[in-house]
């Protein structure tokens, strides 16, 4: 069974996709790593970014973490605050 997740985009990821959030087709039980792979397929331009982390519900997530459909998911390109 397949569904989708919504992913918030900031900074360069927003510029590269032209969107501040994208909906990604995504199997239930998939991991953060799976999501990154799917995003790279759907948006090949993301490969130009130096590193790409994922936050789940406002916390940095490891690539093994399993996603749930109501998680708040965000792509975190290299930060540059301060």
């Amino acid at each position: 069974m397949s569904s989708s997740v919504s992913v918030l985009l900031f900074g360069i990821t927003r510029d590269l996709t032209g969107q501040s959030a994208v909906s990604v087709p995504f199997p239930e039980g998939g991991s953060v790593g799976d999501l990154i792979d799917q995003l790279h397929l759907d948006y090949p331009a993301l490969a130009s970014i130096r590193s790409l982390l994922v936050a789940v519900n406002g916390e940095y997530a490891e690539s093994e973490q399993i996603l749930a459909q109501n998680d708040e998911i965000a792509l975190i390109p290299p930060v540059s605050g301060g």
Partner: protein
Amino acid sequence: MIAITSDPIDVSAALTYLQSDQAGAIDFFLGVVRDNTQERPVDRLEYEAYDRMAISEMQKIADEAHQRWPILRYTIIHRKGTLQIGEIAVLIGIATAHRAASFDACRYIIDTIKQTVPIWKKEVFANGETWVNAHP
């Protein structure tokens, strides 16, 4: 006190907030928009934040600093939106009884903010723009 704001950062208000009768030392760090980056003229900066997570990551940094040093009061304020040359992008203020801790904590906090807090800075030049640190 931790905040992300679209308004100009008010240093006097931050100072008032930090003062307490036990404070003997206050260190303020201000990150300011300068007119060049690696000698290329900058027109302005645009800051974007994942507000919810930026606040919680800054809170983690403040909590860690609190564990390491005897901080009486602190304030961390980060600006977002469009900033012109000379405007304050970030203010960190640390009040302690003695000066060494105020310097150490302030420096720890700004160094760590730059590593972990989801805020992004775009440098806008006369002929182009760059998200800082984004590319290899």
